[in-house]
């Protein structure tokens, strides 16, 4: 199909009247996202968040004299394609900074390339406690780790439910769920909650009746579960079938709309920590919600984190006097402190991990809602 004359005319007019400032320098920001494959659900939200933030920064004039340009590429949810994307972004597109990749697993393979090429990376959804920011001094992360979200979620849950004993169930054949268990155990002990029983399962398991029956028989006040979403839906369903009516609190693996979809009514009342408090009345969050609504996107945590990732890069450029080189951005990132974002007041810690206040959400009426 050839473009019609009218369309070309319209485009030309648009370009002519656009806010073109001759002095603007363009800073290219690469993004390596999982837009296809199993993590596509996350990547699509991230893409929407990045594009919205870049438009917002360019339009709002937050960076005078600088125009941000996004180069978004798909890693297909695989390490291999992620490596190719990083090589293109670093070598061919010569981007000043990279946002992503979507999956922690991919990050462990691709971030060393950026570190070696001295290109700053802002991770927006990697939550593995180790192996991301400790790759090197060019790797930063906006997303909170399990070690930050779970203790905060447990504290908020206890303030509401006043539990004194807990039964713990976790997957012991997966690095992510095992690490989540370590965090849960430490946090429960620190809070003075007695762990009355601990049970394990493996990723391929589909039957958790034996573990759940044993835990329920010990009559804990709460069930605390570290599992990936596939297992999580089965665990929640079977716990309810076994007559468990008490609260269930899950790790980050529960933080997915698929949990509600797959477990249905059994998921009601499930508690999960989250990095983004959708209901926060902060002006930065309200503005973000309004912006996304205007763009026709129903944002989730991944969208808010991606949006914040761009704000953080913009602040870094501003912090280094409007210069958008790779070294400038790296230097600027390490100085980001108390930035108002949809996630709350955001700062980088000494180890380049992000820091802000996490929240607790609960499944109510078939969807995640922020728990008061």
């Amino acid at each position, binding site marked *: 199909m050839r473009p019609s004359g009218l369309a070309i005319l319209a485009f030309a007019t648009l370009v002519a009247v656009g806010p073109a400032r001759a002095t603007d320098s363009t800073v290219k920001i690469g993004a390596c996202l999982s837009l296809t494959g*199993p993590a596509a659900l996350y990547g699509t939200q991230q893409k929407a968040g990045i594009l919205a933030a870049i438009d917002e920064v360019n339009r709002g004039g937050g960076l005078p004299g600088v125009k941000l340009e996004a180069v978004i590429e798909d890693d297909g949810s695989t390490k291999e394609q992620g490596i190719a994307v990083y090589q293109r972004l670093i070598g061919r597109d010569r981007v000043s900074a990279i946002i992503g990749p979507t999956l922690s697993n991919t990050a462990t393979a691709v971030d060393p390339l950026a570190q070696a090429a001295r290109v700053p990376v802002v991770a927006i959804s990697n939550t593995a406690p180790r192996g991301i920011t400790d790759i090197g001094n060019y790797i930063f992360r906006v997303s909170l780790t399990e070690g930050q979200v779970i203790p905060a979620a447990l504290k908020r849950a206890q303030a509401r439910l006043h539990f004194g004993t807990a039964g713990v169930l976790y997957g*012991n054949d997966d690095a992510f769920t095992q690490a989540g268990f370590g965090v849960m155990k430490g946090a429960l002990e620190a809070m003075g909650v007695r762990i009355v029983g601990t*049970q*394990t*399962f*493996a990723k*391929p*398991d*589909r*039957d958790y*009746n*034996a*573990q759940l*029956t*044993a835990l329920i*028989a010990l009559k804990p006040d709460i069930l605390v579960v570290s599992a990936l979403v*596939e297992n999580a839906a*089965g665990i929640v*369903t079977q716990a*309810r*079938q*076994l*007559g468990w*009516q008490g609260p269930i609190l899950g790790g980050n693996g529960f933080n997915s709309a698929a949990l509600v979809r*797959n477990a*249905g*009514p059994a998921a009601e009342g499930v508690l999960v920590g989250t990095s983004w408090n959708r209901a926060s009345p902060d002006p930065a969050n309200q503005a973000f919600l309004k912006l996304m609504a205007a763009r026709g996107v129903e944002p989730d945590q991944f969208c808010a984190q991606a949006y914040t990732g761009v704000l953080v890069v913009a602040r870094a450029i501003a912090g280094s006097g409007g210069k958008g080189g790779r070294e400038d951005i790296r230097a600027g990132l390490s100085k980001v402190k108390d930035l108002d974002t949809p996630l709350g007041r955001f700062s980088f810690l000494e180890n380049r991990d992000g820091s802000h206040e996490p929240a607790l959400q609960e499944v109510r009426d078939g969807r995640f809602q922020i728990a008061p």
Partner: protein
Amino acid sequence: MGQQVVNGLFLGSIYALFALGYTLVFGVLDILNLAHAAVFMLASFVALVLVSDLHLHVLVALPCTMAFAGLLGLLLERVAFRPLRSRSDSNIAGLISSLAAATVLEAVALEVFGPNVARFPLGTLPAEDAAQQLHLLGALVSRLQITIIGVAVILFLALTFLVQRTRLGREVRAVAESPRAARVLGVNVDRAIAASFFISSALGGAAGVLYGLAFNSISPDMGRSVELKGLAVIIVGGMGSMPGAVLAGFALGLTEVFVVAHLGGSWRDAISFAGLFLILVLRPHGLLGAISPREA
């Protein structure tokens, strides 16, 4: 305690049903049909399609799926086993050829249904809360569990009747005893073997549907979770012994549940298979294996 027994019987009924089909073909042909787990998996997907796309009731979809699985069994017999039967080393050749069939079927499922876990739509079985469930000696038994254990028991009884009381059953048993003698006595050996494949695969298919319903999780690799366990069950029960397979299926289900509850999930398979080893040492023919293995 009571609840764990229910959990064990529930799991055991599926193992037993799966192993019954496995052991039936072994009893007749002396061949392990490794494609049995693939039939189990495909049947689960077929039931899912019948229920979610054609909106059939589960208890209607079950016999339809069993018929499909049976026909798949006939096809397997025709393609993977019959051409090899006349060869001198047909046991090993059949084993390998069934492995090939399993791989092909799994690849087909992967292509058609994708690698993700599929689920029966919510409401396939009527939702129920704890108050509606049956309380039995301190244990909660859901309608799902009753249905699954019930269907399994009905199928055990039907199979026993078929094998012990019908002409077809007598022919199958005669072929199991000695194909040559059966042929001399006028039994249509090919027909008896085909029939045992049909029945075996239909049972494997039923186990697949029940497994899919029980844990509501269907994926192209789900056969692997029962493949080795089915093998363990038929060895413990006595190769070719049908009551042995049922007994050992329930025993494995109960053992797994109690190991998980008291020693932890990591020990489940280790203890179960250590038990298998012990039984092999103490009772080489299995719990109910009366016939001595034929000399190679």
